[in-house]
């Protein structure tokens, strides 16, 4: 036994079993992206809080809101209408083939109308607006951020959250239901045209058959759903734009991430909202 054997030793962290290098790198590989995701949600929460705080305070930015309603609404109308029209025609052509096989050809108008009003109209409109408006907001606010224009707005004593984010978010929320109605209308019209091309049917008969089993709740729930989609698009696009950094590359990243993330969250929200709608409007 050595001379030092009886001297009590202090325990230190060195005495604990050290994780292997592989284990540590695996933990880092999980923790770093997880941390950035948590950070993103934290910053998003702060952003939403700042926007909410500004909501009920003067000035209400009426002129800017009108400008944004035009930007989001009327400038997206043509694209949304075309997308709705295309979906209506495709839906009629595809459904016809299947329904004829099952001997349920008379159900075609109802199938087209129900499908467009309930699902394809709102989702297609939201995705088109994600692409057009989301990218636009992300790039515009991102560019303003990296060129210090947002700082200049704040330095001049104006609430940038109110002027830039609040107005765009409200415009998205108000315009999505109206754009969805336009997409639904165009989809039903082209659905009838596609159906008529295969087997002529009077427009009033198509509409009568299509809306036979449709009630008020069939309109109410999808309209509410598109308002939520508008909220998601507005919030995500403004948030990604206003946190942009890193010059022109950063602006590009903001625009891309605004589209990708808002599309992703719209689809996720769609799943949840469809389930909720089925619970409340069975």
């Amino acid at each position, binding site marked *: 036994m050595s001379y030092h054997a009886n001297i009590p030793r202090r325990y230190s962290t060195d005495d604990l079993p050290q994780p292997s290098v592989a284990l540590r790198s695996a933990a880092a590989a999980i923790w770093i992206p997880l941390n950035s995701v948590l950070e993103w949600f934290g910053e998003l929460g702060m952003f939403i809080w700042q926007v909410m705080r500004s909501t009920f305070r003067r000035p209400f930015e009426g002129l800017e809101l009108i400008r944004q309603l035009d930007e989001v609404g009327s400038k997206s109308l043509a694209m949304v209408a075309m997308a709705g029209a295309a979906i209506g025609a495709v839906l009629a052509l595809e459904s016809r083939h299947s329904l004829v096989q099952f001997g349920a050809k008379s159900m075609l108008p109802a199938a087209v109308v129900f499908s467009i009003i309930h699902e394809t109209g709102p989702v297609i409109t939201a995705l088109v607006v994600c692409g057009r408006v989301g990218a636009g907001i992300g790039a515009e606010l991102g560019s303003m951020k990296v*060129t*210090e*224009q947002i700082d200049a707005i704040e330095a*001049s004593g104006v609430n940038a959250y109110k002027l830039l984010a609040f107005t765009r978010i409200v415009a998205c929320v108000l315009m999505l239901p109206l754009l969805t109605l336009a997409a639904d209308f165009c989809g039903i019209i082209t659905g009838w045209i596609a159906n008529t091309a295969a087997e002529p049917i009077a427009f009033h008969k198509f509409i009568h058959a299509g809306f036979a089993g449709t009630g008020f709740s069939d309109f109410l729930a999808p309209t509410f759903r598109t308002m939520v989609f508008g909220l998601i698009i507005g919030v995500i696009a403004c948030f990604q734009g206003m946190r942009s950094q890193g010059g022109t590359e950063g602006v590009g990243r903001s625009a891309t991430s605004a589209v990708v993330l808002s599309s992703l969250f719209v689809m996720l929200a769609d799943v949840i909202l469809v389930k909720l709608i089925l619970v409340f409007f069975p």
Partner: protein
Amino acid sequence: MMPPAPAQAPAIKPPETERGKKLAPTFNVKQAGAQQDNAPNSAGPAMVVQSLHKSYGEQKVLNGLDLKVGSGQTVAVLGRSGTGKSVLLRLIVGLQKPDAGTIQIQGQEITNASLEEMNEIRKKMGFLFQHAALYDSLTVAENVAFPLRRHTEMTAAQRCERVQELLGSVGMQADLNKMPSDISGGMQKRVGLARALALEPGILLLDEPTAGLDPITSGEIDELILKLQEEREVASIVVTHDLHSAKVIADRIVLLHEGNAVIEGTYEELEKSTDEFVTEFFKRDS
């Protein structure tokens, strides 16, 4: 090497009212509560910065900076790139929060101010950004009119007149309807200065106002700052690398190094300094 201890700062001059007749503000700025003008408060210093600390991660940018600026005084802040000169201005205008220390604007502590309180304080300040930061979707005239439209109750005609007056003072009256992308960097800076002066602020924060400008325009900007100093007793902090400009416009010069003021005094005092960093700084310019 640790920087040498900062030299004793000369006492702040009282406002020299005899230097020039103080112009009455031509309009009222909307304030929360009572209507007030934006005239500087000559009772005490316009800005007081005490023990200001700011770090970004491991990098300490400001390390206990102290600074006082009296009404009607212009202080030029010099230093090497990355020593926190622009950060100092951003902290004063509340675009960032300091890690520690206090900032008083006309006697009001701003480091813990709410957004609404800060916005009220910001109406008393004019900020010229390093790259002008003009709103690129607005014309030159609309850029200058922006603070007037937001914070005054001027009619469109009054606003138009004021915008023309402001742009005239920076030699840009011929470019009212141009977009920022259609004018040069120097012209953008002049428009930025006109915008910063729109509300007749008592405090001006200028981030490299003469950088990238030709000598004649730089001289004009310097003259404009001097005029404001004399006519409206505007307290200014000018961040600059231009020693000539600092000599012309500044009552005092503060030289920053490693997040703190190495020396503070008049141009002549700094020129005579035997401090190694100061002499090196002045030698490079000469």
